[in-house]
């Protein structure tokens, strides 16, 4: 009976795990069109259950975990001079108004009223020295803005240059934590190095979600879920007949 109970617990854990996987797939599919979105890869981690007092040991169980799939998405041309795609495993640095800093690959930028280069959400993009890039407003505003592959901003009419943009290569990018909105933080505080070339002006990186891959995974999850439920039902019947025989 203990074994049967343990089996049931384990199967229920399995179903809970599959429900989480389904949630991750739903999140990926919802973001199939989100610029520079990095898909979440769900995976199972072998884990130990709580200490079992009758069996006097910890039993193995499954735990849900997720990691960020850092493969690049397909870049597409937008023609806007304020759209940047990043070619290579590099990150832009963005600073929020409250001083918090993020890494991002979402290169949808614009100039704010003060002529500072910001993302669409108003975060300031930083240069290599960690300072915001101010190109000037009003009469000072550049007529055109070109951004070279190394991240240097230039006004071809006057020859003025700004930047270059911070383009950081992190030793362990998988340690980055998603914060939504294409922003990532680095709780481990890695020291990144400046990459050489990697900025493509007029392009935008697409989402790296492959809907076919997600759909296939979704079918697998659905079938496994049904199978697990059947086994659970069978276990219940086993216990039922066991109790029936004992009572006879």
């Amino acid at each position, binding site marked *: 009976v203990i074994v049967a109970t343990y089996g049931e617990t384990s199967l229920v854990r399995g179903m809970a795990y599959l429900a989480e996987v389904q949630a991750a797939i739903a999140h990926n599919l*919802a973001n199939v069109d*989100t610029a520079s979105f990095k898909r979440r890869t769900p995976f199972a981690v072998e884990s130990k259950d709580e200490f079992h007092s009758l069996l006097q040991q910890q039993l193995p169980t499954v735990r849900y975990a997720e990691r960020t799939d850092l493969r690049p998405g397909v870049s597409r041309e937008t023609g806007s001079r304020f759209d940047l795609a990043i070619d290579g495993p590099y990150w832009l640095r963005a600073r929020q108004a409250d001083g918090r800093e993020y890494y991002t690959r*979402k290169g949808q930028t614009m*100039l704010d009223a003060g002529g500072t280069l910001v993302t669409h959400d108003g975060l300031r993009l930083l240069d290599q020295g960690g300072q915001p890039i101010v190109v000037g407003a009003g009469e000072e*505003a550049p007529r055109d803005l070109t951004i070279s592959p190394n991240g240097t901003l230039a006004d071809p009419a006057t020859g003025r240059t700004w930047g270059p943009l911070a383009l950081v290569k992190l030793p362990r990018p998988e340690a980055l934590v998603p914060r939504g909105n294409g922003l990532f933080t680095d709780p481990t505080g890695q020291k990144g190095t400046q990459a050489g070339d990697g900025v493509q002006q007029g392009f935008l990186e697409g989402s790296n979600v492959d809907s076919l891959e997600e759909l296939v995974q979704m079918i697998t999850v659905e079938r496994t879920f049904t199978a697990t439920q059947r086994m659970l039902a069978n276990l219940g019947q086993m216990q039922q007949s066991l109790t029936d025989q004992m009572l006879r």
Partner: protein
Amino acid sequence: MLKSLYTTATGMRAQQTMVDMIANNIANVNTAGFKKSQASFEDLLYVTLQSPGLARGAGDNPVPIGTQIGSGTRLNGTTKVYSSGTLEITDRNLDIAIDGDGFFAVTLPDGSTAYTRDGAFQLNADGKVVSGSGNILLPEITVPSDLLEISVDPEGRVTGRTAGNPDTSTLFGQITIHRFINPSGMLAVGSNVVRPTEASGAPISSTPGQNGLGTLKQGFIERSNVQIVNELVNLIVAQRAYEVNSRAIQASDQMLSTATNLSR
């Protein structure tokens, strides 16, 4: 499971907005001076179940990666794309296109100033130059009623001959155009006009051809910059994305129903 249902619903809603926006672009394919919109999405907040770098229990090794579960997508904003539309010859002498950067300023009925790239001007009953919807061009240019011929040069000088003085040309006024550091930050209010906002910055005004502004072309009209082929491709992408999201709802529903069957 319920989480995945809500997550997928955000995806379907986002794609719905995308289709609405594409529909608006396609509907305006023949609107003079129309600038297409582009939608951008963002991933929603993550729920952190397990922070990276923390141990799960006493004596355990810290886990190298955490677990954050996202909750879908949402529309981050629509931006107007200010690439130039094609200039089309109309030979109407009050059709004026801006070749390059810049907007015309007009006065709206409520007295406020708005900006437009639609240069299909007319004359109103008072002889003032007005836009197609009757908004007066700024600075105001009035032409006499006995006008024979009007011409606009690339630098914006409006000259013409009148019946009273048919041999020499008279200067009627000077068109000023305006540009913004971030035109995408302007607020579209319909009728082909946009208003400046804090994000767009203040207008930089000058005569055409100066300070990085474009020049004027009389007898031309700027067509919409909507490209039907691109819009249709976007439409297909949005529709397919909508489909896969609806498929995910079905799968989550199926799983929920399986789980419900546990209690016989």
